[in-house]
């Protein structure tokens, strides 16, 4: 199913077709166009086109103040609060914890002081930064994008080079509009075949992570390509690039194509009129050249993928829903056996138990991975005319306020509410629980988010990652469920 091979480092063979120039990858083209200078130790100073900020940015602004510095190019920064915002109110005053409220307020005040565009809770554009930026047309092909959040890899779906950074680096970008980076290696993931009904982008990326491992792409910029990728929607591509960080990838990318252009056209911050035509002409040249060499290549037939769920505490612990909890006795090494035992204990599982026997307490649809309109549509298709199982608390938290409005215009809120789901305001919510939306200790949650780490959704929480349609199926049946069973009885 999956082939992994080292690509020949000698580029001369493949470059013969193109006279005078070495074929370049999408990544290399963007890297080169943003390189200001390269230090003797190999680190390159890169120019940042767009810097996205969320309500965890207070420490970075504080670092700037300590040095008496101000944001140097404020019009290249965009801010929206997501991690600390309430999802049952649109009022910052509703945040009971004064320190958390201060985080959300700091973003508003720091943005205002610096002249940075800010989409606050009273702004119809607010939402999770990784949902908002593509939606507003702020993430564009060829851009170099950073944000103080690891899921910045999301924006690569539009043909950008986008990656997460830490607080000191956020301050560095604010102060200089640049960032030092060592050039990562390149990995191409080629997707072939036709995915089966009930299988989504989430299942594809969980399969990739399970195969290459949670550090399988560390130090690499990953480009997703191949016929199966080309047929995926922009929202599906965003989901795949988003979770690239769960395989350790520095960035996830997709070459811009007709799907990208159709998605971007007319969005508020996208070029308009003649500028649009010029931009598209430029963007067409970004795709990796034929024969461009990647350091590694991985191939996957998406036709063999089934709906996936995670059982353990790393996103690499993903299996088809038809599988059973693995038996640590079969682990390939003592370390792996230890890790499996620890996860099985924490998650409250029995080796050999059918995954479909796992009863859930909570269901969560949302996050920067799966909080977009297509995600809500796919979940609503399962929930329509059905009821959430007794004893299950099920939530839908749209990824942005525009997603919420669009879903309401399509009547999806009614579908969810009639089924017994809570329909809430946009934000990160139970993905991380920093706003107080948490899963209680010992509770099992079917979740469309990206991390199943110990305590991720609250101390003692037990997270199973899956697609939004699979979460809806679990909410309806009260246990992990193969969504295909619910799609076929329609």
């Amino acid at each position, binding site marked *: 199913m999956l082939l992994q091979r080292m690509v020949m480092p000698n580029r001369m063979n493949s470059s013969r077709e193109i006279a005078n120039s070495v074929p370049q990858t999408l990544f290399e083209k963007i890297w080169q166009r943003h390189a200001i200078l390269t230090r003797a130790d190999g680190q390159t100073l890169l120019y940042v*086109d767009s810097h996205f900020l969320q309500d965890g940015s207070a420490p970075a602004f504080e670092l700037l103040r300590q040095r008496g510095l101000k944001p140097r190019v404020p019009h290249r920064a965009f801010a929206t609060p997501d991690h600390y915002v309430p999802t049952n109110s649109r009022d910052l005053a509703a945040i009971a914890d004064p320190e958390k409220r201060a985080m959300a307020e700091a973003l508003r005040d720091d943005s205002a002081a610096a002249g940075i565009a800010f989409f606050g809770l009273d702004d119809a554009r607010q939402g999770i930064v990784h949902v908002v930026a593509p939606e507003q047309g702020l993430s564009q092909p060829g851009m170099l994008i950073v944000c103080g959040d*690891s899921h910045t890899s999301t924006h690569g779906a539009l043909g950008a080079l986008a990656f*997460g950074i*830490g607080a000191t680096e956020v301050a560095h970008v604010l102060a200089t509009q640049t960032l030092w980076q060592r050039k*990562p290696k390149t990995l191409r993931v080629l997707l072939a075949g036709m995915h089966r009904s009930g299988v989504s982008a989430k299942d594809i990326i969980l399969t990739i992570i399970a195969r290459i491992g949670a*550090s399988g792409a560390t130090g690499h910029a990953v480009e997703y390509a191949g016929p199966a990728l080309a047929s995926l929607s922009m929202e599906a591509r965003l989901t795949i690039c988003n979770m690239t960080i769960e395989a*350790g990838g520095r960035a996830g990318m997709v070459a811009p194509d007709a799907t990208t252009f159709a998605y971007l056209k007319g969005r508020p911050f996208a070029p308009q009129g003649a500028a649009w035509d010029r931009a598209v002409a430029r963007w067409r040249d970004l795709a990796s050249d034929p024969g461009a060499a990647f350091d590694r290549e991985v191939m996957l037939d998406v036709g063999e993928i089934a709906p996936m769920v995670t059982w353990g505490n790393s996103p690499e612990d993903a299996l088809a829903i038809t599988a059973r909890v693995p038996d640590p006795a079969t682990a390939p090494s003592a370390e792996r056996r230890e890790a499996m035992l620890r996860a099985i204990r924490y998650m409250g599982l029995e080796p050999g138990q059918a995954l479909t026997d796992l009863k859930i307490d909570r269901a969560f649809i949302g996050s920067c991975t799966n909080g977009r309109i297509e995600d809500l549509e796919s979940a609503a298709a399962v929930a329509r005319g059905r009821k959430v199982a007794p004893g299950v608390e099920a939530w839908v938290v749209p990824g942005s306020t525009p997603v919420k409005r669009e879903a309401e215009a399509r009547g999806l809120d009614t579908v969810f509410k009639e089924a017994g789901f809570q329909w809430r305001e946009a934000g990160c919510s139970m993905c991380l629980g920093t706003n107080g939306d948490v899963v209680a200790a010992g509770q099992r949650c079917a979740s469309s988010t990206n991390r199943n780490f*110990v*305590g991720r959704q609250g*101390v003692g929480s037990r997270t199973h990652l899956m697609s939004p349609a699979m979460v809806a199926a679990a909410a309806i049946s009260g246990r992990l469920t193969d969504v295909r069973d619910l799609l076929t009885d329609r």
Partner: protein
Amino acid sequence: MEPFTSLRAVALPIAQPNFDTDQILPARFLQKPRALDFGEFLFRDLRYRADGSENPDFVLNQPAYKPARIVIGEANFGCGSSREHAVWALHDYGIRAVIAPGMGDIFMSNAAKNGLLTIVLPAAAVTRMIEATLAAPGLEIAVDLEAQTVAMPGSGDGLQHRFEIDSYRKKCLLGGLDELDYTLTQLEGIEAFERGYTG
């Protein structure tokens, strides 16, 4: 930034692969002001039980490991969230170096900004170090940044491992230098780039 030259200190083995930054610093402390001692929050949910009492099973609660200033981790240490607070928690507790067969890219970058040395060594060497420190809690590791070597002087294995590090990162750590100060000396070059930039 605190300079790093050499260090001989007790090593704390974290014998878990994929030890993510949520484990190093749980998300519910992310809004805490930097002025606080983040060492208090280090490994919080592993160190303490739900009722607030110490978890005696966690390595750091065994007296021999408490003075640790070096962490030895397994594959993919520091993966996950980009929170620099994870590095602050290690730093504030007194940890100056992390040794592992591989670490998250963003974690390594954050570490470099805070004077925390990250050392990547072959998995077999790290496994031996973890086993040695588990067998003899309180065992010390010696790190020499100038020479780029790691050794376990007290273990009797006599082995010394050489590690790689970017020359600039090394210079910054040795001198306690700050990258932003250096970049600010390059502003002319940045401005020249901007003038010719059409993107």
